[in-house]
């Protein structure tokens, strides 16, 4: 998909063509509008599952963040939960220290994670391949161990106690049914999605895809690869931190799980299952994964990972572009059939 999107502007004769191309890419499809309308359905159809729905929205936001670096820029990370965890602990600590206002909490958590992301991005931008995988993995593990050791700050193994989130706008209390939590998470998800969508359909987004496709050719045509990677990595870190902060605020607890390897692996699974390098891949993947986990864990909680493992093997063997890639393949197939028959 991306090789032709990169080739297209080069062959453009008119000077406005590249922008027109990007604008055409960024046009809203009816399926997208339908998707976002469908996210409102849980309020009406399954009000008992709003807590789950809020978890889905949080995971979707986290997966979107990973998609920006992995799917669009080709930076493989096995430690992305580090940023999720930093955001979660920042929001939690803020509340413990007496400031439980959710929206400012979100901003502070995003800012702190952004600083951490910016600092680490200098290292990330310099490496590729196995070294990069080991560095992201090592950084995630390091942070997890550090949080575990710093029990005076994080509560260590027991998690952070005494988080209390104030009502949103002073009005909407976080309730047991997850009504506020889902509305809150969904609203933030939608806003950040708009930002991510804008980034991807900008010249900068195109440059990122260029880096993913060929990391040595991009500097040769004059693209500042390292600075691009630093920028998108910082943005992705901020989004992950915001996702973590929403989890803290809506559940009013933070545990070490928030930055564990398991969470890094889970979000990778969601993204792979949904489809990498497609804005909706992480969203679909998160929904499928979380709902499936909810259903399966009711049956046999211990063996959930058996099915996840099989699913992963099946996806890389038969659906290399995830569910969305598979659907797109079917759509293409149907389209060519229809246009050929008459």
């Amino acid at each position: 998909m991306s090789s032709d999107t990169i080739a297209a502007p080069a062959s453009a004769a008119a000077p406005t063509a590249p922008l027109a191309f990007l604008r055409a890419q960024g046009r809203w499809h009816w399926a997208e509008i339908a998707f976002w309308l469908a996210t409102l359905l849980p309020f009406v159809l399954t009000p008992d599952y709003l807590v789950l729905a809020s978890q889905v929205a949080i995971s979707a936001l986290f997966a979107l963040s990973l998609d920006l670096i992995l799917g669009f820029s080709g930076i493989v990370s096995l430690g992305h939960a580090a940023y999720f965890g930093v955001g979660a602990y920042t929001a939690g600590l803020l509340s413990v220290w007496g400031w439980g206002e959710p929206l400012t909490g979100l901003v502070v958590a995003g800012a702190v994670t952004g600083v951490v992301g910016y600092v680490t991005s200098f290292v990330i931008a310099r490496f590729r391949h196995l070294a990069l995988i080991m560095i992201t993995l090592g950084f995630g593990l390091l942070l997890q161990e550090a949080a575990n050791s710093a029990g005076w700050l994080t509560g260590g193994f027991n998690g952070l106690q005494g988080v209390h989130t104030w009502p949103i706008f002073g009005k909407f209390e976080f309730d047991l049914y997850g009504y506020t939590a889902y509305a809150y998470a969904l609203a933030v998800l939608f806003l950040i999605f708009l930002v991510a969508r804008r980034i991807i359909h900008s010249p900068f987004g195109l440059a990122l895809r260029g880096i993913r496709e060929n990391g040595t050719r991009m500097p040769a045509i004059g693209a500042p690869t390292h600075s691009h990677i630093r920028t998108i990595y910082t943005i992705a870190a901020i989004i992950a931190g915001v996702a973590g902060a929403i989890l803290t605020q809506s559940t009013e607890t933070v545990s070490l799980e928030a930055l564990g390897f398991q969470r890094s692996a889970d979000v990778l699974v969601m993204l792979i299952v949904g489809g990498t390098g497609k804005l909706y891949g992480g969203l679909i993947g998160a929904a499928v994964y979380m709902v499936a986990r909810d259903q399966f864990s009711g049956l046999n909680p211990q063996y959930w990972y058996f099915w996840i493992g099989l699913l992963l093997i099946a996806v890389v063997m038969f659906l290399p572009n995830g569910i969305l890639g598979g659907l797109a393949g079917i759509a293409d197939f149907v389209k060519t059939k229809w246009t050929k028959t008459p």
Partner: protein
Amino acid sequence: MPPVFGVLFDGVAYGMLLFLMSVGLSVTLGMMNFVNLAHCSFAMLGGYVTVTLMNALHWPFFATLPAAFIAGAAASVVLERIFFRRFYNASELNQCVLTIGIVFVSVAAAAYIYGTDQQPMQLPSYLQGSITFLGLDFAIYRLFLIVAAALITILLVVTLEWTRFGAQVRAAVNNQRMARGLGIDVDTLFAITFALGGGLAGLGGGLAIAMLGLDPSFALTYLIYVLIVVSVGGLGSIAGSFVAAMLLGVADMAGKYYVPAFGSVLIYLVMLVVIMWRPSGLFGRR
């Protein structure tokens, strides 16, 4: 025994185990650039084979070790033929996803068959206890581990340095395309190397139970250590893996003994620094 010697001794024994479990991954990664996160699942399989044969069938401990080796080798060959060979040219991400899927399946399967508890294992009486030498106490089993692993290492080095097979392996690690051009059947070579690596991991798993314990999370816990050994040592380098495994073993033991509050922070920090300093590892060629 003064603590320094105890920590050093335990660390070396631990490092020997890590070396056995990781050397196969290092060579196969260096040869085919295939990121096999499931390597520790072979070690776990070896461990469960040893435990089962000893506890259910009452085999002697030493008889179970070849069985653990064969189980690891057989499992790795089967997986290599069915799955891995299709992914040699795939992206690292796809390789990671495929093999982590296998890890998840193996962990859940182990939990299903054996439960999540630590597996009990009774070492033969002649491997228990300790001997005193020059006023220092040495645990016999750990001494045995060091000697056994050292013998295997020597065997491995001799095989790789002085046999035709070894020369072919070194050629393939050094430059796979050139090796193919010279008429070396790299695919078969790789399958054999993969089997050997899986077998050594299985053997390491069998030997590890008495020191590290065995439960279904083994495949994930020690995967991280094995990856550290491989990436710090440098891909395809046996000497590198050996040095890295010793360093990691001693450093981990020392960290746990002297600064338990920091947990494994030290290990990860050192690993990060080494990889940033030398991205291809201490002994890496690329």
